[in-house]
């Protein structure tokens, strides 16, 4: 039986995917400022951030309305719970993009500096973000698991970039300010990957009803026979 509620849930999915698409565009534009040294993209990032923030507010409203009016259960409830969390993650991704863009604008005014593994980090982080959103759209658990696995690579690249930039700053004190900025950009990208990982975890919960976060704590809870409200 097709329900009006299904249309509301489809609308919610659509809103999240549109917001996710804007976040992807923001990251790509912010990275262009850094890599191509083109400040013009800052205006796009700023405009998209306003749109992302509007989505953030509207999606929260939609979720609360759906909970209040429909008292969802089972898969519907898990979708809305996941949507609330993904909404927050995407808004934070937008913030990371703004940080990268603003730092990039500073770097544009300075002499060029080595970016370490930042270009590769951009590939990994944007790929993870795109695939996490695809896994949400399709309810694809395998793709979500793949996103989670890729987070280790992003962490490794960030550490390499940190080390490389620290050595550079030790050798050349005039590069300290720029080097710190590149490290900040690497950290922003690593956080984008973390948010993509969170989204992928939410997708697995949404599809399977299985919470895979914090496995050690989950195991301890199950061993203790913990049951939240039963």
């Amino acid at each position, binding site marked *: *039986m097709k329900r009006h509620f299904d249309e509301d849930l489809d609308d919610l999915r659509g809103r999240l995917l549109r917001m996710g698409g804007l976040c992807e565009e923001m990251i790509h534009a912010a990275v262009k400022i850094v890599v191509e040294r083109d400040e013009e993209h800052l205006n796009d990032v700023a405009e998209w951030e306003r749109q992302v923030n509007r989505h953030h507010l509207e999606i929260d409203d939609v979720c609360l309305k759906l909970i209040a009016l429909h008292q*969802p259960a*089972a*898969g519907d409830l898990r979708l809305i719970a996941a949507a609330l969390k993904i909404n927050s993650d995407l808004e934070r991704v937008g913030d990371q993009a703004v940080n990268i863009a603003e730092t990039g604008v500073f770097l544009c005014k300075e002499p060029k500096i080595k970016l370490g593994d930042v270009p590769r980090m951009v590939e990994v982080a944007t790929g993870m973000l795109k695939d996490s959103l695809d896994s949400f759209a399709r309810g694809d658990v395998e793709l979500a698991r793949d996103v989670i696995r890729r987070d280790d690579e992003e962490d490794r690249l960030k550490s390499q970039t940190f080390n490389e930039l620290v050595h550079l700053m030790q050798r050349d004190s005039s590069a300290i300010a720029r080097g710190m900025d590149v490290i900040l950009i690497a950290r922003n990208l690593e956080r984008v990957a973390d948010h993509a990982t969170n989204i992928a975890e939410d997708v697995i919960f949404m599809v399977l009803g299985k919470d895979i976060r914090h496995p050690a704590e989950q195991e301890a809870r199950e061993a203790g026979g913990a*049951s939240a409200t*039963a």
Partner: protein
Amino acid sequence: MDTNPVVPPTPAPALAAPLPAPKPGPSAQKEKPVVMSVRGLRAGYGGGASVLKGVSLDVRERTVTAIIGPSGCGKSTLIRCLNRLHEALPGAYCEGDIHLGGRNVLEIDPVLLRREVGMVFQRPNPFPTMSVFENVASGLVLNGESDRAKIAERVETSLRRAALWDEVKDKLAAPGVGLSGGQQQRLCIARALAVEPHILLMDEPCSALDPIATARIEELLVEIKEQLTVVIVTHNMQQAARVSEYTAFMLMGELVEFGETQQIFTKPVDKRTEDYITGRFG
């Protein structure tokens, strides 16, 4: 129809050792003992097809078990089998095992059984000719209790347990049917509690009540499950989710899924359960 016994009171027998649960849940080690065990229950009405087609479930002590399902799925028939009310209908039959504290329910005198397994119905049904006090005392009196002080004490205790005492303490002599619908239903609960049952069966007890009266009954359920076991049939799935620890989903006479309420309402195993609780059919 009321279930008040008409024989002298007898001491409630001690409950036997719990039966093993058929499917222990994830928090099995914290589960309470089984107080009533149903196995392969079949029931129906004369020459027609079976209404219940082999239902098995365990009811755990001092918990609320909710039975949900679409109209005609057999949920009311199931609880009416638990205190042998179903068999009272002409042509009705009930086969299988229902064990209460180690005894086969189908072999217990129905009148004695209903002292241990009380029932509250969909519509409040206070005895129309009796006062508030007499309604609650009726079960005790029919059981042969004549000590007026003891009866008065039990009436007050039962009305307090039903969260009705404060509202009726000054009008105990007034007709029971003069109370509001919600009060009448709590009066019926007090009447059922007065004979101190082990299990209270409730067949859609809030379906005729407004949201405030419903909320009172739900609060009451949370209170009384500290002392006795409740099995409630409800069409209101949010009510099942709010008040029960265990939920059974029935469909066309079969028990489709039975488990902890949180599991049933967040991650049901059977697609039919998911479709029902999300309103995709029913």
